[in-house]
């Protein structure tokens, strides 16, 4: 079994209003506080491997959560490249090219900004990343733990040593808002065209996917999505 913990980087100096794929900005103090909150949330949770996008905001977030453990870098986890739309707000994009913006809204899988990546192109690298991760962490022939027969879908708890012995691996992936939503579509077999419509990825949220032995990259179970309870005070709405 492979449990994939997925998160998005914390707040950057760009705020959260413009499209910023490739601009390599650091976290703000608020972003660091968000990453620390996630680190505290994950204290005591065994994590076998941490992999981050090479971009500064993701690396800083991953290093905060890692608290000294090694952080692997995978180039395929980069944010979608918005090309000439980088650093623009939606209003500015509409001024420049309302027709392309409309097409992109209608189908962000096949449409790309001038010089940028389409959703399908990002999905291809997300797929490649998941395929390699499954091959490395859950090689065929390892001891299979079947899905729990509990009709609630929850699994019986096992001790950490037992978990390690039975090849239950946990990997934390730290990436980006658009990339993560596309990865969720890939992992759950949802059309890439729907990535903007179906999912949310708040900063330093906790999302959990689970793969059993022999599952394909598109065969994940969604165990938890966009949990930001470590960032919310009492009485605050538990969603973004």
């Amino acid at each position, binding site marked *: 079994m492979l449990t994939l913990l997925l998160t998005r980087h914390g707040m950057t100096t760009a705020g959260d209003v413009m499209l910023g794929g490739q601009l390599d900005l650091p976290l703000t103090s608020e972003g660091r506080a968000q990453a620390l909150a996630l680190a505290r949330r994950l204290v005591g949770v065994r994590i076998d491997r941490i992999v981050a996008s090479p971009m500064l905001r993701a690396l800083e977030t991953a290093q905060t959560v890692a608290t000294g453990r090694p952080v692997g870098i995978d180039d395929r986890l980069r944010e979608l490249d918005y090309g000439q739309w980088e650093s623009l707000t939606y209003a500015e994009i509409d001024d420049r090219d309302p027709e392309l913006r409309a097409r992109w809204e209608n189908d962000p899988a096949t449409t790309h900004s001038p010089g940028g990546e389409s959703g399908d192109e990002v999905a291809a690298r997300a797929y490649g990343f998941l395929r390699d991760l499954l091959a490395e962490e859950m090689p065929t022939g390892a001891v299979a733990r079947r899905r729990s027969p509990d009709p609630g879908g929850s699994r019986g708890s096992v001790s950490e040593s037992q978990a390690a012995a039975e090849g239950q691996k946990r990997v934390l992936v730290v990436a980006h808002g658009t990339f993560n939503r596309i990865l969720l579509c890939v992992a759950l077999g949802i059309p890439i065209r729907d990535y903007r419509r179906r999912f949310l990825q708040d900063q330093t949220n906790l999302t959990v996917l689970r793969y059993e032995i022999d599952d394909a990259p598109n065969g994940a179970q969604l165990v938890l*999505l966009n949990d930001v309870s470590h960032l919310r005070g*009492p009485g605050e709405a*538990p969603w973004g």
Partner: protein
Amino acid sequence: MPLSPDGRTQAEALARRLTGVGLDRIISSPMLRAVETAKAVATGRTVEVEERLREQDCGQWEGLTFDEATARDPELRASWVRDPATNHLPGGESGDEVAERVRSFLVDLLAKELPGGDRRRVLLVAHTAINRILLCVALGIPVRDYRRRFVQGRTNLTVLRYEEGDNPDGAQLLVANDVSHLSDSTEASWS
């Protein structure tokens, strides 16, 4: 079956979690465990009962463990695991049949709550199979995949959003299976 003491504690934890969160309506399955949970969260507010939110009917397999069901009819059990959308248990409902009543419920809910552009919040209290089937319907995922794709822990918080003009299959999934309000939740949802 009524809630156990643990079940009541879980419902109270969800109630505390939702303190201060405005809810315009609370709608529950008619089954006792759901109504008790809904009332704990409602803390005095009205709980509406909706027949279409009943749990999937497992017919003659009601009350059996999965091992007992397998012993009784390994072939049917296997075909149900392979495709729980079209297969039904003896005297029970298929996933597609449950999806049909879920869709009908969502059609009516959206027709009533979406027009006008207000931000409405509705809490639904139901069951593990029907909730996972509802997620498939709401997100346009094949009903056949409901057991494979989703998890619904007890008194978890799952949030779907519809904008005006959305169809029942046009939801956005904001949060799924958040159980951080449960005291033993540190790893419960992914262990």
